[in-house]
């Protein structure tokens, strides 16, 4: 091609020195543009963090103490990992990040226990589910061959036991309420939450180590971590029920992770990192308390997280909208995720590409790609028109918000799940078919377990997108400010991003540079923790493949 043009003589490599300089300039321009954007955002985020925490309002002694007890040990340890043991560095940030992530999830759960399901209702629900599960498993043992019958039982029995038939037959839960003795909140949570979490941890450890004793030990540690709240909780001023909700999952997750690290015997010294960080923080707090150094007068503090919006900026908080956001996320997880994963399974495993049906599938595929690009505000209008105007659900409720934002992230869930499923090698499917498995058995036993990490990553990222969506919430009438937390999925609810938007319309500096920054940091901490976890998870699973 080049030989046809007269300029072929000057095509490549004519003026070498100029060329090299130009190349270098080009490279650095490209890098510079990238770094400039990232640096600009970093500066923005530092400003926000500074406004939210105001570290320089603290006593210099406080900063110095904290620096000595927290920052210096972290830096030393990080330096050690960097120079001596790289894999320990990976272990270190996972061991620190995992409890943070689990604590966030537990925080959401805690809010649910406080406002939506009381511990006693939860206990009754757990008992119903266990009974239903027992019935289904028992039936499948007895009548193993009757597939259709089993299918009916699998669908109907849990429905009957947990929900019952409205107005005709109450579910098992209603009968349980009639019992003369029901455990109080404390024991409800021990039986209905701490023990199940411990059982899951123990079962998992037992499965990977193939030893009953180790599983029992793991479960025992988890139970002990949870029950420690009975004694320690009152000492540190935490209600035992709160302790259960946070401690059991955190201890459980740590047990599973420590077991994993010990089994692989790689980077063991990384496990010291979270210990050093936590010990440093406590030591710093104790010393500053002792010497009387005042901490920073931060906007983002416990009061902010636990109080409602107020016209007085120093009183304003984010609590009710935090509850609202958790409810909305729960609706999304229960509605959009199953549908999205189901659609992805269909498109990857069931759909044919031939004939007229193939054209329909292609249409669906193109349509999903396009839906992913529809502006979020249009989904808001859709939610308003369908769920509120047409079906008549309440304006600004968690259900409507969850469904609307759920539709918005549906294409993202489908696309990322499809990618995860596509990564499963075809040979594994063929092996399953060769063993006589049906399509659904192959999907359930081979494809889904293998693509689980990928699906999980995609759904976490989609959930992160969902937390921050604001425009649809405006359209479906999520109120600008709420003073009390919602008590059900059907009551009007606030949401974090909506609250941030309404704070941004306040013009006083305290709101602009204080409350608003604190709200933004809260939102970002939740979101970035989730996204970072998803990205780390994905990179790990790519490494192992």
């Amino acid at each position, binding site marked *: 091609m080049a030989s046809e043009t007269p300029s072929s003589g000057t095509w490549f490599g004519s003026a070498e020195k100029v060329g090299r300089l130009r190349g270098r300039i080009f490279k650095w321009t490209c890098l510079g543009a990238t770094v400039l954007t990232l640096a600009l955002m970093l500066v923005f985020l530092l400003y926000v963090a500074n406004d939210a925490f105001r570290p320089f309002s603290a006593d210099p002694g406080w900063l110095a103490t904290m620096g000595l007890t927290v920052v210096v040990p972290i830096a030393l340890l990080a330096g050690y990992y960097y120079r001596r043991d790289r894999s320990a560095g990976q272990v270190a940030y996972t061991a620190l990040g995992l409890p943070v992530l689990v604590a966030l999830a537990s925080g959401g759960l805690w809010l649910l226990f406080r406002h939506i399901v009381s511990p006693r209702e939860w206990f009754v629900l757990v008992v119903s589910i266990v009974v239903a599960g027992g019935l289904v498993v028992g039936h499948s043992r007895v009548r193993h061959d009757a597939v259709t019958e089993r299918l009916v039982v699998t669908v109907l029995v849990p429905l009957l036991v947990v929900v019952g038939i409205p107005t005709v037959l109450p579910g098992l839960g209603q009968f349980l309420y009639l019992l003369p003795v029901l455990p109080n909140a404390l024991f409800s949570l021990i039986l209905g939450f701490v023990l199940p979490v411990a059982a899951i941890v123990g079962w998992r450890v037992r499965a990977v180590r193939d030893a009953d004793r180790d599983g029992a030990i793991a479960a025992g540690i988890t139970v002990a971590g949870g029950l420690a709240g009975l004694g320690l909780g009152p000492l540190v001023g935490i209600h035992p029920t709160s302790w259960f909700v946070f401690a059991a999952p955190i201890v459980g997750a740590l047990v599973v992770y420590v077991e994993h690290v010990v089994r692989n015997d790689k980077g063991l010294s990384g496990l010291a990192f979270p210990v050093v960080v936590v010990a440093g923080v406590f030591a710093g707090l104790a010393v500053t308390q002792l010497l009387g150094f005042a901490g920073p007068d931060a906007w983002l503090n416990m009061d902010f997280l636990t109080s409602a919006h107020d016209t007085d900026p120093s009183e304003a908080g984010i609590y009710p909208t935090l509850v609202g956001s958790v409810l909305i996320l729960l609706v999304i997880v229960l509605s959009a995720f199953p*549908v999205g994963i189901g659609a992805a399974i*269909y498109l990857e495993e069931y759909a044919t590409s031939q004939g007229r049906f193939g054209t329909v599938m292609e*249409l669906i595929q193109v349509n999903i790609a396009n839906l992913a690009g529809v502006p979020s505000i249009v989904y808001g*209008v859709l939610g308003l*028109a369908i769920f509120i105007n047409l079906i008549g659900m309440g304006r600004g409720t968690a259900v409507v918000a969850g469904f609307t934002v759920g539709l918005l992230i549906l294409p993202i869930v489908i696309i990322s799940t499809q990618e995860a499923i596509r990564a499963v090698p075809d040979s594994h499917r063929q092996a399953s078919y060769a063993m006589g498995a049906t399509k*659904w058995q192959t999907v359930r036993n081979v494809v889904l377990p293998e693509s689980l990490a990928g699906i999980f990553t995609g759904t976490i990222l989609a959930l992160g997108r969902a937390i921050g969506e604001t425009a649809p919430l405006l359209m479906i009438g999520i109120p600008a400010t709420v003073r009390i937390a919602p008590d059900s999925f059907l009551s009007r609810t606030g949401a974090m991003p909506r609250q941030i938007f309404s704070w941004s319309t306040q013009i006083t500096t305290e709101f*602009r540079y204080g409350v608003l920054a604190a709200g933004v940091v809260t*939102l970002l901490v939740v979101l970035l923790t989730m996204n970072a976890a998803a990205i780390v998870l994905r990179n790990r699973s790519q490494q192992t493949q």
Partner: protein
Amino acid sequence: MNGESALTRGATDRDVKERLVGVLLFACAALTIFVTASILFTLAYDTVTFFGFDETSVVGFLTELEWEPRNGFYGVWPLVSSTLIVTVVSALVAIPIGTAAAVYLSEYASPKMRSVIKPALEILAGIPTVVYGYLALVYLTPWLRSIGLPLGSFNLLSASIMVGILIVPMVSSLSEDAMSAVPDSLRQAGYGLGATKYEVSTRIVIPAAVSGVFSSYILALSRAIGETMIVVMAGGLQTNLFDPLDPFGSLAGSGRTMTAAMVNAVTSDATGGSPEYYSMFAIGLSLFAITFLMNLASNRIAARYREVYQ
């Protein structure tokens, strides 16, 4: 029942179950078509309601140059012009930076550098738009004013810059995918002819990936058109028609984009049955049509591109 062997009975039962699962999963997939259909239907239905009012007409909507619902003016052009300003300025920010980042990541970056920059860009893409809007309103606008630009406290310039930063990760990651997909043999051929890395990047990789790069631009622009929170928070709600004689004036002042007008229609005092309330459906339909066509075009271009190298 007694005559059949247990094996065949199990098999037919299993068929029923398989078919049931298949139907259920198909319903999930078909729901996405239903979503598109209901977007189209609900928007179109209420758009018809909107044009049924006395003070509104299709011709007026498309030709009048004023958007003042209070006084009965419903010309869409001021909204479109503000949206276009945001789109163009954000493209001026995002396209050079995004393309440069893509070239760097695909051609120059060491694996270590990639492992830092790519997640960072990804995290950038995960920050919610309400946060970008806040950054534009509370930090960027005062900064731009402190360097001497005569900006209002709500202005389209800082909103557009923020929208630009928002879509940089989109441009860079999609363009990088396109550039990484260029077969290595083309690069080797370039080096074989004595080309430098710069020449290979600019004259071989970028031209070879141009349709993928171009499709990423379209997708990013469509995202900029539909962006809501940043323009509502930092761009304000005043309706202003773009003035060709004073282009900077339009940038420095407030402007109500199409998306901002929709937000205003539903959050302002406009009551449920008023033309202003229904106007959001007409604007929404226009917005949906524009972005849908752009996404379709982007997909088409990317699909054509894929055929070339496989």
